């Protein structure tokens, strides 16, 4: 059987610099990413964390690549008990100028056998990246309730 891998491509009317900012700045991610703030000094090998609105850590991993504004990669896994059999998986963002647009390709790979986290990210990314696109193009994030993603138990 093929290893689980999630790939998502979207085209956004913006610049690579603005998209980079949107992917790495905590004040920006908080707007479109279910209130998550990303915390890292963004040095390769440094820790990477996602913080909830109340400041507690939801997900943790490490920075793997930081090549502004072209490639960003980090590992992370949700640290709740639900995902205790999972390990940090690698999310790589590739930003390519595409005429007046930017093509964003996200590849998320390296999941544990029978990963539950894979279900979570497969449902989460389309909502997060759709909201990111709306925020950059219209100034307004999407209002999607977390429950609408219908995660498996």
């Amino acid at each position, binding site marked *: 059987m093929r290893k689980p891998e999630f790939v998502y491509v979207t085209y956004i009317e913006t610049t690579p610099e603005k998209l980079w900012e949107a992917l790495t700045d905590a004040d920006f991610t908080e707007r479109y990413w279910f209130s998550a703030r990303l915390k890292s000094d963004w040095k390769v090998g440094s820790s990477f964390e996602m913080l909830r609105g109340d400041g507690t850590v939801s997900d943790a991993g490490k920075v793997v690549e930081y090549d502004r504004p072209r490639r960003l990669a980090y590992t992370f896994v949700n640290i709740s008990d639900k995902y205790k059999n999972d390990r940090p998986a690698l999310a790589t963002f590739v930003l390519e100028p595409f005429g007046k647009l930017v093509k964003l390709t996200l590849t998320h790979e390296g999941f544990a056998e029978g990963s539950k986290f894979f279900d979570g990210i497969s449902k989460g990314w389309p909502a997060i990246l*759709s909201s990111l696109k709306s925020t950059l193009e219209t100034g307004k994030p999407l209002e999607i309730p977390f429950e609408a993603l219908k995660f498996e138990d």
Partner: protein
Amino acid sequence: MDLSRFKPATVYTIYIASTPEKVWQALTTAEFSRKYFFGNPVDIELRVGGAFIVRTPDGALHISGEVFECDPPRKLTHTFNVNWPALSETLGPTLVSYEIEQAGQAVKLTMTESHDRPLDDDILSGGRQGWPAILSSLKSLLETGEPLTVQMAPPQRMLDALKRLGIGTP
């Protein structure tokens, strides 16, 4: 045709600040499709058994199919057969299904491309290249009033794979 024989090969989900009715209208009218679908007008008879036709901007037949599910504004399923000689005969029909769901203040649109036989990633790469561009542009059109200008290169990996199978392309 037995729909249960078809297995999903490519799934693309996108959330749009819109209403299910507007998303349905965007998927089923030429007025909208011309703007987000590389200039191609869609002509669809909205009933089970109805015809689905996509023409090129100059009016030539590009894609044809038949409607199998039509539940406005929630679900639309039709075959989607590109009009290249021997394509459907060799690879079988392509089935495309759209599901439209309310998700809070947004609409969740899920496109599923299915096939009745296993196809390799080279063949599937054509759709995987096209759908994100088409549906990203549809989202922009509904949210901003303007589609994206996506200058898409030909799906070379798929075209090369078709050539190896002896399937002629224009």
